[in-house]
């Protein structure tokens, strides 16, 4: 039986890769969809309103001066603004009047690398888009085409790891044969895991997000039991409430900003199978799974990037 499971898993992974090579990014796009684009001359604080009003956490930027696509606005940009403000509390006026085309200066001022937004043509194989996306830190990849007449860039859409895995979970029946326990696949991030506790100042957690290059920080109690998670996207609510200038706030207090439609933190154990993980991705809006032991102690994290990397490149 063990041999069977191994063989089925390997054949299923190969079949999913074949599927990803047979489809294009264009195939992932719905027949009708919305694409929200922000002019780079918009104020950062106005762009926050637009993201929250449309229930999105990222948007492509359009530079109308050069008539070109100008990268993606993501939660990392807002984290940079908070860190800049924390190091320069006297610069409130500048932060308040900051435009989207000023975010590059903020990156330079706090010494972080710009998010390299690779892009790809919508008609390239989906497998290729996934590989390119893994090379970039943002976990998303813009699909860029050119206007036939004017050769100007068109931002067709932005693909995310979440949407690609959901597309696989919805269209690849083979995901049901991924029956090996995730603890055996060597895909759980469990080394050097960063965490904090409920009374940690939220600014320390935000700095941890940047320095560790992660998009969430688990919150554990004094015995190592997982209690909650602070996510990069929670920063948008922090800024919206203007409470970023009270950065002595604990992460527990900052999490009170979360809106009631937050679905909760998904946990699993090392014994869970990728088939049930993919089934949850198919059914829910889940962006990561925190691995706990039977008692609920934090053991590691399984991100969408880990899952996609295994499907694309795993042995």
């Amino acid at each position, binding site marked *: 039986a063990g041999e069977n499971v191994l063989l089925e898993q390997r054949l299923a992974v190969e079949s999913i890769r074949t599927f990803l090579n047979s489809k294009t990014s264009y195939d992932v796009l719905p027949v009708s969809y919305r694409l929200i684009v922000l002019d780079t*001359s918009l104020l950062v604080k106005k762009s926050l309103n637009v993201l929250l009003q449309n229930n999105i956490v990222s948007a492509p930027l359009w530079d109308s001066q050069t008539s070109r696509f100008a990268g993606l606005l993501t939660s990392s940009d807002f984290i940079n603004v908070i860190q800049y403000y924390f190091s320069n509390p006297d610069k409130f006026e500048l932060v308040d009047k900051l435009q989207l085309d000023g975010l590059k200066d903020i990156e330079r001022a706090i010494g972080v690398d710009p998010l390299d937004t690779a892009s790809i043509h919508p008609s390239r194989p989906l497998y290729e888009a996934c590989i390119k996306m893994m090379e970039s830190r943002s976990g998303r990849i813009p699909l860029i085409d050119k206007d036939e007449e004017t050769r100007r860039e068109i931002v067709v859409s932005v693909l995310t790891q979440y949407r690609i895995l959901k597309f696989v979970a919805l269209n690849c029946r083979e995901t049901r044969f991924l029956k090996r326990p995730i603890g055996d696949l060597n895909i759980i991030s469990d080394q050097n895991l960063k965490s904090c506790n409920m009374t940690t100042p939220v600014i320390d957690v935000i700095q941890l997000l940047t320095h560790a290059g992660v998009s969430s920080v688990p919150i554990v109690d004094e015995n190592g039991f997982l209690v909650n998670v602070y996510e990069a996207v929670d920063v948008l609510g922090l800024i919206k409430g203007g409470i970023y200038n009270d950065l002595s706030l604990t992460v527990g207090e900052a999490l009170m900003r979360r809106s009631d439609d937050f679905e909760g933190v998904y946990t699993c154990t090392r014994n869970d199978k990728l088939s049930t993980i993919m089934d949850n991705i198919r059914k829910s809006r889940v962006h990561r799974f925190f691995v706990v032991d039977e008692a609920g102690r934090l053991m590691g994290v399984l991100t969408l990037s880990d899952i996609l990397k295994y499907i694309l490149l795993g042995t």
Partner: protein
Amino acid sequence: LATSSIKHNTLCVASIVRYKRKYVTQILYAPL
């Protein structure tokens, strides 16, 4: 061209464009 009321001094315009066989509602937010 579709427009929505100006809020927070921000203009929002949109147009629905056919992209190959799909339909994209491209929405641009710009400062007033």
